[in-house]
């Protein structure tokens, strides 16, 4: 076992399973929105660790900057001013890859080994294998991957796979000043979330809860939300995300059906030829034509 520093669970566009014998700990990042002050330390720590720098943009009349994820901004804060029952709340969510257990990007990816899901749950893009088709963009239920304008490769949060591989927390989690980002085993993170949710409920957020959507098999980036019943309040966090049925159809049923259909046509033709023989001009007509020529 040599070629990877993290065990692989599955790789894109590969029909045979990766070695599955080793059982390593499943990790997760927990974002406690109720403790988030929207300081963007995670954004800058991400830029600093991964050596990516976006363009200096401009102010769009909101605090969000950069305004959206890009190939150089793998995480951004999204700010929503919500007024419910006269109480103003500023719901600030760190957006980025959710590292789904059932990753739509990986499902959609046609390039073998361009997207890897590690056994610990990290879904990582390997740009050297990426062909730049953007299928991952269509595959993602959270609108995360971005194609670089410079090199046409897809980029997104790696969950700092290079740090996790040497047992360090992702850069954002380490930096987070208020501990709104926690990192550990998925089980620990769920336990921690439970405590936070209990505290929030005591403070009057009766609908507080954990966002770990089952539609994508659970995620390795989870949120503690004060309003878990309304995830869309948080700048449009999907209420019930899943891989789009169209993508499922495209990368699911279509594949075997089409392959079978094509094989059927090919084999059908072959056997038709073998069994029925060629469709030749009949001797009769050949003679007729010869006769005409003789005239």
């Amino acid at each position: 076992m040599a070629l990877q520093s993290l065990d692989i669970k599955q790789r894109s566009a590969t029909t045979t399973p990766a070695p599955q014998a080793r059982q390593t700990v499943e990790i997760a990042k927990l974002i406690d929105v109720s403790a988030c002050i929207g300081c963007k330390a995670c954004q800058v720590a991400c830029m600093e660790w991964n050596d990516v720098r976006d363009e200096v943009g401009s102010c769009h009349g909101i605090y969000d900057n950069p305004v959206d994820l890009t190939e150089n901004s793998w995480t951004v804060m999204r700010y929503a001013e919500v007024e419910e029952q006269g109480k103003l709340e500023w719901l600030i969510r760190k957006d980025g890859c959710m590292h789904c257990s059932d990753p739509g990007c990986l499902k959609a990816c046609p390039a073998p080994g361009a997207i890897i899901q590690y056994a610990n749950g990290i879904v990582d893009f390997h740009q050297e294998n990426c062909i730049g088709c953007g299928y991952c963009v269509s595959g993602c239920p959270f609108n995360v991957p971005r194609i670089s304008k410079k090199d046409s490769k897809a980029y997104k949060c790696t969950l700092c796979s290079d740090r996790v591989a040497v047992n360090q927390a992702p850069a954002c989690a380490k930096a987070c000043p208020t501990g709104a980002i926690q990192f550990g085993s998925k089980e620990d993170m769920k336990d921690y979330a439970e405590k936070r949710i209990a505290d929030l409920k005591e403070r009057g957020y009766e609908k507080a809860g954990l966002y770990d959507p089952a539609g994508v098999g659970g995620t390795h980036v989870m949120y503690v939300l004060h309003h878990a019943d309304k995830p869309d309040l948080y700048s449009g966090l999907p209420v019930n995300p899943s891989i789009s049925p169209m993508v499922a159809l495209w990368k699911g049923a279509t594949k075997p059906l089409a392959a079978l259909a094509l094989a059927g046509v090919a084999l059908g033709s072959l056997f038709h030829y073998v069994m029925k023989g060629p469709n030749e001009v009949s001797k009769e007509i050949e003679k007729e034509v010869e006769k005409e020529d003789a005239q």
Partner: protein
Amino acid sequence: MTNHWVDFKNADVVWVMGGNPAEAHPCGFKWVVEAKKQRKAKLIVVDPRFNRTAAVADVYAPIRPGSNIAFFGGVINYLLSNDKIHHDYVKHYTNAAFLIDPGFKFEDGLFSGYDETKRSYGSKDTWKYQMGADGFARIDETLQDPNCVFQLMKKHYSRYTPEMVNKVCGTPKDAFLKICEIVATTAAPNKTLSYLYALGLTEHSNGSQNIRCAAMIQLLLGNMGMAGGGINALRGHSNVQGITDMCLYAQTLPGYLGAPTDADKDFATYVAKRTPKALRPGQMNFPQNFPKWFVSLTKAWYGNAATKETNFAYDYFPKLGGASDALSIFNDMFMGKVNGFFCQGFNPLASLPNKKKVGDALAKLKYMIVIDPLATDTSEFWKPHGEFNEVDPSKIETEVFRLPATFFAETSGTLTNSGRVVQWGWKAANAPGESKDDAEIIAEIFLTLRKMYAKDGGAFPDAIRDLTWAYNQPLSPSPEEVLKEINGKALVDLTDPKDPTKILFKAGDQLPSFGFLRDDGSTSCGNWIYCGSWSQAGNNTARRDSSDPSGLGQTLNWGFSWPVNRRILYNRASADLQGKPWDGSRTVLKWTGSKWGGNDVPDMRPDAAPDQYVMPFIMTPEGVGRLFSREIMADGPLPEHYEPFESPIDNNPMHPKVKSNPVARVYKADMEAFGTAKDFPYVATTYRLVEHFHFWTKFSKANAIVQPEQFVEIGEALAKEKGIKAGDRVKVRSNRGFIKAVAVVTKRIKSLEVDGKQVHTIGIPIHWGFKGTAKPGFITNTLTPYVGDANVNTPEFKAFLVNVEKI
């Protein structure tokens, strides 16, 4: 701050008003979040804007900029009238029981003794304690005497009703009362409130009194000296605390030793005036040690020239001739009274109010020396940068020198955080190009001057000649040598005063504490409060043991906390008269039977048994905390609400005759440059954003990316009125100039009803300028008024008037 960053986690209630730690101090704010998570603490935020601290607060209340004292007064009134105070604490540890001169009065907005012609309190005699025949202040332990501080306070603050708070501050009454209720819970002896503030309290014409209000509330609640309590100035730069301790400002010498003024004709007068006598029997009255600290400083600076015979080189210290704060300096400069200006790591063009005035002042200099790692706006005040800096260089005769300095990790040395912890940092890389350390640059300038004076003579060369400069490499004083000098050492063998045969320290030994400093010239110490930072044991600021046996976050073996490694000031007040902690689960100090022990270095004579009644506030001659500040403040012994100099309302609702701070210094031209609500109907307040640090990070690409362009924040109501949409460009004008910026339209700034009038607030972040990587912007302080706090002249950046229009 009286406590320290990690100590916030010990609080039951955290009250932030006049600060925004989530944005300005995120990593310190973590301990507030920790208090919420671990202790179920409540976080209160009072601010004109629903800011990022408010985003995680339990209770938020809006307030009109510049009306803090009305709010505080309301809280004091609530606590007093609902009897929500910590009685034993107030009675014994504050001056509540002290009797004040019967002539003391407050009428029509003025305290007794006001002199209108001088705009100051000419006589403060009535602000003093009644003195008994025994030479001590008189007290009434029953707190019933109408002239006792407690009764005077009750009377004074009875005017600050919830209705009045609502009228002046615009804060909804229910939100105000809810906050009072939560604050009042900490009057219980075992509950604490940690008060957090920063420039939101200081940058007002009543800044000092704002802070006093917070301190008074903490005294009433018995929260000073407690773990999870205190009054905590969050402060600004990484070493703003250390530079303040080193006293790089006119009024004091290192260690807060009052600098001599023209009134201090000779050494004896100077020392006598600064060495107080105890106002109550048996009190420590620690400032009585002033001569030891001052003499040790003179030995550190002038060595053998500082002897008894020369009055310890007293005349080598220049005497202050008058005001000398940043505003007065630039006013003098503006008047053409200054030739040379030394500008070290400071960007006054951006940082001081009224950029036009500051720029014009700089243009009147003959020469200016800028020492900075970065190409600051100030260093290019003479250079045209479009509409951001419209100047004509051919008309500016200032010769500007710009010297490249090192940045933090390019040099070693100590920084002191606002929890007073002095920490050593190590050099990680060389600075670019030919950059030099500040100390090297100073050494070069100084030694060149010394050579010139030695060769050619000149005005008063004595001090220049005699200044100690015994560094191994004179042109490059190492931080190690300098810190040792600051710490101080024995100059001769020091013997034990109780046993003269016993030698405590040999000549040349580093001293472990200021307790060993002497006033006879046998010790030297560059800054008494730093004594102990580099003892014979070595560099204590470089200690890196972060163990925390108490669980309170005291980490006594991490770095060095002045004074004498004490982490919580006034910690004697965390225990009752008998020395039993008010809260046994958070013991800071306790009387062990023979001495003070616990989890901190005692802020008390270690063997002062409780029955000696030595009170906890050892830096005051009375030994107790001051609810009534005697004659110390310029604008009154009890804080009173005055309107900002630019106010949206016509009168002070508390007292129509006196609108704004009656003793704040205003220069004539600046008075004329104030705007009125008629032309500038909206209140503006300036502030910082989490993505940027002052005017520095506009040079940092990462920060320019996460907040690239100048903007102003406008509430939805005003935006609708003015037809402004988010993302539009707007022009904001004050009577001193204009800026243009993108509009952020938000629900987070509400318009408030103040004194029957709807008042809108516009929020203006400060971080942009014409130099840097971020998009060029206008200097926000183009707008701000040139007036400061009545006591310390910190500019009134937080409340002024503007108008806004879409462009």
